[in-house]
């Protein structure tokens, strides 16, 4: 009985100290005085790795999700005789929900895991400690550029995802299913509002970018410096980041689109 209680206490303390460590990591990253001349090339390189190289998966999955939405929406709406509304459905679900969320999930799998593995391996091979030995702040040199790169890239990727998805949906519904082009776009423009829908979706993706890269960077920095530890940390990055994204998405949706 007492052993069980002790185990529970242990889990609680572990969780609290992990929260503290991740918080202090975030504080270090945010406070780290930026030196533009040093920071900028590093940031550029990370944006290349995290953003530009993620473009292909974002473009392909965006197109296909848009196409599937068009197809599914059509088969449902056609039974109510209002298949012109498919443009509205595709655009609203992409801009509000699927754009930010699916991009964040793909980003966690494609870029987040890579960030964790890279930082974890640096820790395991003691590159981080050697940097400290020669007087270079690893937070400023390694962690901060990666964090900001993820933070910057995710909103851009989400905007690209939504745009490509709308294009995919238009492709299917106009060219394939034969919905009249004018009513497709008119319905969409009537119902999608720039501030309520597009900007709120963008805010969502900013929040997701913050959380996903925070989790990825923290898991890498905090991992057990063995090959097994790195593999566990990578898995944890994908799992935790996805859970955070889905949970936060519900809260943000309730705040933005709920009636309170």
């Amino acid at each position: 009985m007492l052993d069980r209680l002790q185990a529970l206490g242990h889990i609680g303390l572990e969780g609290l100290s992990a929260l503290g460590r991740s918080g202090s990591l975030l504080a270090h990253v945010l406070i780290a005085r930026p030196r533009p001349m040093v920071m900028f090339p590093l940031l550029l390189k990370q944006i290349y790795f995290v953003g530009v190289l993620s473009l292909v998966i974002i473009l392909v999955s965006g197109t296909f999700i848009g196409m599937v939405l068009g197809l599914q929406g059509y088969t449902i709406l056609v039974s109510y005789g209002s298949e012109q509304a498919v443009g509205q459905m595709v655009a609203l679900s992409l801009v509000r929900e699927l754009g930010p969320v699916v991009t964040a999930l793909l980003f966690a799998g494609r870029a987040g895991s890579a960030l964790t593995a890279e930082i974890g391996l640096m820790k395991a091979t003691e590159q981080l400690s050697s940097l400290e030995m020669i007087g270079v702040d690893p937070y400023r040199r390694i962690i901060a550029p990666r964090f900001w790169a993820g933070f910057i890239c995710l909103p851009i990727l989400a905007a690209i995802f939504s745009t490509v998805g709308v294009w995919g949906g238009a492709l299917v519904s106009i060219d394939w299913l034969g919905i009249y082009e004018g009513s497709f776009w008119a319905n969409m423009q009537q119902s999608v509002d720039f501030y309520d829908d597009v900007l709120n979706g963008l805010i969502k993706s900013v929040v997701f970018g913050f959380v996903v890269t925070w989790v990825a960077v923290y898991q890498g920095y905090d991992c057990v410096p063995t090959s097994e530890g790195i593999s566990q940390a990578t898995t944890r990055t994908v799992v935790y980041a996805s859970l955070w994204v889905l949970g936060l998405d519900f809260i943000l949706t309730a705040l933005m689109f709920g009636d309170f």
Partner: protein
Amino acid sequence: MRTRVVEISVGGFMLTGILALILLALNVSGLKVSDSGSSYRVLARFENIGGLAPRAKVTLSGVQIGQVKSIEIDERMLMAVVAMDINSSVDYLSRDSSAQILTAGLLGEQYIGITPGADDEMLEDGDALENTQSALVLENLVSKFLFNKVSE
């Protein structure tokens, strides 16, 4: 050389993102840049607005000339007061024009149709339309139809 490739592709990436956002704004949400400030406000009282909502379009002969700004209730007359913003380029609506709530398609969204009158004076900012026709409410229509059937 290597840095050049990285920098160019990052530049292209950011440009694509901005372009995507602009496309979303202009093409998907129909945001208009030049539209602000060039409209005048017209009020209309309706007995029943049905499913009319703010941002619904205001049309003349089916062409959009403005949009519904707000819908409130007049506490004294117990009617709905609809405020519409009509583009200032449309300055040829006479004062006795009438407003009608129409439905796009069988189950589509509702909008306001303006029918011009014959008066010489034109509508100005803050004017109210006197002739209005309420929205068609399906339940009322059905009950009227049933009532007629029974009385036959």
